[in-house]
């Protein structure tokens, strides 16, 4: 369906605000229905535990870590609760 057809069905005339609202609707759809998914790979660095989410992420689907013995990505589980840190060289 074209943007023009969408606007005609609603009775809108301003294209700019229509496009902005369509993007908002996309966000809501992607937030709940996971219509299109994307993958980003990040290097894991020895001694670093903190990695940023992709800047364009709307909702998280899964996190995997590469098993270097068979070169496959395997989904990892989420840790619930704060682990007890006994030795931390860079506490936050």
């Amino acid at each position: 369906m074209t943007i023009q057809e969408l606007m005609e069905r609603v009775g809108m005339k301003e294209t700019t605000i229509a496009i902005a609202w369509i993007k908002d609707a996309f966000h809501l759809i992607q937030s709940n229905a996971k219509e299109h998914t994307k993958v980003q790979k990040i290097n894991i660095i020895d001694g670093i535990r903190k990695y940023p989410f992709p800047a364009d992420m709307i909702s998280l689907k899964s996190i995997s870590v590469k098993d270097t013995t068979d070169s496959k990505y395997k989904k990892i589980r989420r840790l619930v609760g704060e682990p007890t840190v006994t030795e931390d060289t860079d506490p936050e």
Partner: protein
Amino acid sequence: MSYDTHKTWLYRLEGRYIHLWQYIQGAATTTLGDYKIRLPGEYYGNQLIYPNEDITNGLRVEYTALIEPFVGDAWEDLTGRYSDDGISFTASTRVIALGAGNTWLSAGFADDDKIRIIGSASNDGDYTIDDGVGTSIAGGATSIDLISTDSLTDEAAGESITIYQIPDEDTTPDESNHVNLNRLLSLSVVDYLKAQLADMQGNVQMKEYYMREFWKKIGDNESNKRKISMTFPTSPYAIR
């Protein structure tokens, strides 16, 4: 070397960061000469430690994003799809051949279509068709070449490959562009626009009505993918 990462790695969500932890059973060690020794008095047992090795592209995050919201073609018009083990690739001329007797036209493709290749040994990715080789696609070409900015790797036939058409994104959309959604989700966007208009007019009741319609269509679209039927018995006193 990471192994059984689904058992030995864990993550935790912290604001806009992923915290990675490695689960080990061991103790703090140090290297003395050529020997790795366990430090006396150190705790031995189950521990969570920071990642203890470099892994190139080791962390894979799958997520949803605002991916190509506006495209040149409607989803319903994406007709191109072809699967076979007779597809070959020539790097020097950027040519993809379907094999004798199989035309790009009958597979549903046309000039300038954007295509995605999956299943090949070394040519998986997105490309754009330029035109047919020897004859046009409409004239029954069995081979096509790609636009000059695309590149291929030489690959003989043999792999089970699928080529399918994908919509071409437009980063500066205008009224002629399509929304990159199927028909039902496009109709849900119509409800969303109506809700926003009602909100601007201060008509909260109407806004709520259209937002309900919006979510209902998203729900319908999801249930259309699942083959689950639910049947409820009608009670004798039900109002029809």
